[in-house]
């Protein structure tokens, strides 16, 4: 018999309690601490910080714990928290030239001032399950060596000196902010870069990959990939000078791409840029490829109709919190709209059946 859907409130409360129990798992197994997640799930923490647009390792780790390891859910928790925070101002642009480098590779030059630093990378690990990790135990300590005191200028700057790189467009216009102003088309490059660095890693990766396979090909070389910590400085109006307020880890990727040129100007290499919070190099590389692909118009290239070149397509679909919300909302009740569709299809079928009957009657 029909029971009206009373008790929604009780169901919600019960579901939340059950969820909390599931999150905890078997109580005989010790509970994960936020510090453990922060220290041992660092790349997950980095992803949540980058896509959540909030640099706070402890909160990202907490969000991962609360979301049972669902990273998009964790990003969502961080975004919803972030939006309630007061905004004091903007920092100075971060000087990635002065980065304390943990990893730095260039695919375009065998060596460059500052050297190549492999750093903590999976690149040359053989992907064999390490069954030793089933047991507890600390790994043997890594060799230590003092950091190279020589400055490590950006590799692309060195090409720039010879006039081979397109100049970096400067400007005093403060960059827009997607979290404070609605996205409008056409979006300028700072807004596009913000959308990409907040965007879903999987989406940005797939877009970048598509350019490599020919959908808007840009012939990218990784001029430089650098990962390390940078000081964040802020102008304090009362003091009249900039003060260091903290340090953040960043992954930065600059690509060198095929050139533009005209009769008046000699050919120059063009740039793609990726900058992501934390050690997130896959994302940084992917971002730089998609950035370059979206610059086709300003560089006078032909539109090929490739998805990654289509800024409107990329920017409106890169955000996983928007995407997952709209995708998952279709599980909410839609009785009313479905009922209207039911009435319509029954009516159309009745009309079609009557029409067929008339044809049969005419023939008879």
């Amino acid at each position, binding site marked *: *018999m*029909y*029971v*009206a*859907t*009373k*008790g*929604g*409130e009780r*169901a*919600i409360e019960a579901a939340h309690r059950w969820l909390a129990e599931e999150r905890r798992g078997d109580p005989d197994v010790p509970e994960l601490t936020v510090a453990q997640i922060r220290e041992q799930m660092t790349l997950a923490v980095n992803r949540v910080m980058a896509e959540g647009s909030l640099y706070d390792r402890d909160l990202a780790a907490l969000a991962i714990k609360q979301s049972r390891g669902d990273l998009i859910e964790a990003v*969502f928790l961080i*975004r*919803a928290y*972030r*939006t*309630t925070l*007061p905004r004091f101002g903007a920092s100075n642009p971060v000087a990635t030239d002065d980065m304390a480098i943990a990893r730095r590779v260039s695919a375009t030059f065998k060596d460059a001032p500052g050297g190549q630093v492999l750093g903590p990378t999976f690149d040359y690990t053989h992907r064999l399950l390490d069954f030793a990790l089933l047991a507890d135990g600390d790994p043997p300590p890594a060799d230590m060596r003092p950091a190279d005191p020589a400055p490590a200028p950006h590799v692309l700057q060195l090409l720039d000196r010879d006039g081979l790189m397109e100049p970096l467009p400067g400007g005093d216009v403060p960059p827009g902010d997607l*979290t*404070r*102003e*609605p*996205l*409008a*088309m*056409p979006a300028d490059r700072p807004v596009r870069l913000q959308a990409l660095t907040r965007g879903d890693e999987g989406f940005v990766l797939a877009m970048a990959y598509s350019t490599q396979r020919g959908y808007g090909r840009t012939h990218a070389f990784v001029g430089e990939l650098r990962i390390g910590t940078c000081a964040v400085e802020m102008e304090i109006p009362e003091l009249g000078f900039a003060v260091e307020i903290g340090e953040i880890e960043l992954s930065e990727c600059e690509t060198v791409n095929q050139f533009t040129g005209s009769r008046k100007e000699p050919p120059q290499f063009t740039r793609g840029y990726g900058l992501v919070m934390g050690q997130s190099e896959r994302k940084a590389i992917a971002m730089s490829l998609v950035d370059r692909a979206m610059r086709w118009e300003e560089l006078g290239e032909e539109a090929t109709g490739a998805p990654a070149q289509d800024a*409107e397509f990329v920017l*409106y679909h890169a955000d996983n*919190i*928007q995407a*997952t*919300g*709209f*995708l*998952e*909302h*279709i599980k*909410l*009740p*839609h*009785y*009313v*709209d479905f*009922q*209207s*569709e*039911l*009435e*319509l299809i029954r*009516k*159309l079928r009745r*009309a*079609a059946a009557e029409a067929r009957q008339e044809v049969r009657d005419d023939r008879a």
Partner: protein
Amino acid sequence: MTGYTFAYLDETTKRMIRRAILKGIAVPGYQVPFASREMPMPYGWGTGGVQVTAACLTPEDRLKVIDQGADDTTNAVSIRKFFERTAGVATTTRTAEATLIQTRHRIPEEPLTEAQILVYQVPIPEPLRFLEPRESETRRMHALEEYGLMHVKLYEDIARHGAIATAYAYPVRVEGRYMMDPSPIPKFDNPKLSQNAAIQLFGAGREQRIYALPPYTDVVSLDFEDHPFEPTRAEHACALCGACDSYLDEVLTDDDGGRMFVCSDTDFCTRRRDDGHPGRRGTDPTT
């Protein structure tokens, strides 16, 4: 709840939203971009409606929240609870008692008054979206009143099916100017959009748009002279209150084709039953 401002959003954000609402009221049916915030519930759950409600609520308000016409669907319960916690406002399930009603997919059966605001949750605010996916293009089409594409779509429906094959989110024209998506309400509800005494506000959080219908606005559902607009409902009486003029939900009662039809507007149905209008199955929804 401590630590948050009244109705969750900070005052600067509420002011920004109110400005968008005022602009929307000044230009009925026009989609005003606004800097939608990330809310503590997912996009698609009514973040646009929730932000509009938060910007309109005052401590004296009495709030009603419905989803599919019902006060007790889980998401309606959840949103009502959110405002009970963050704004501490009184709530009600009675349409007539509410000063602000947030809704998803329905307009209440009972006529609204000048003292009421109706807030719609909107998934896709752009009526032309499924004909033209580009926002840059649809904004231009609205600016130029270039709505021929929609008429062609409706005509093609008639050519293929003999009728306009849109049953909900049926497009309307506001005061002879902007084409508007009324949110996914069944087209049965479309006539209530027009000349409504209440302020009608539409919030699309993910799409960052707000639009509005001031009281007594002319809203016309698109049609053709020889295929006039037709609001439709299931051809039944409500099994609980006997109403023949309300929008009905179809409920499957067994696995042998058994079904019953009941009012989707739970408050409307309850009032009728209280007033002694039994349906075919009596008045008790639990039997």
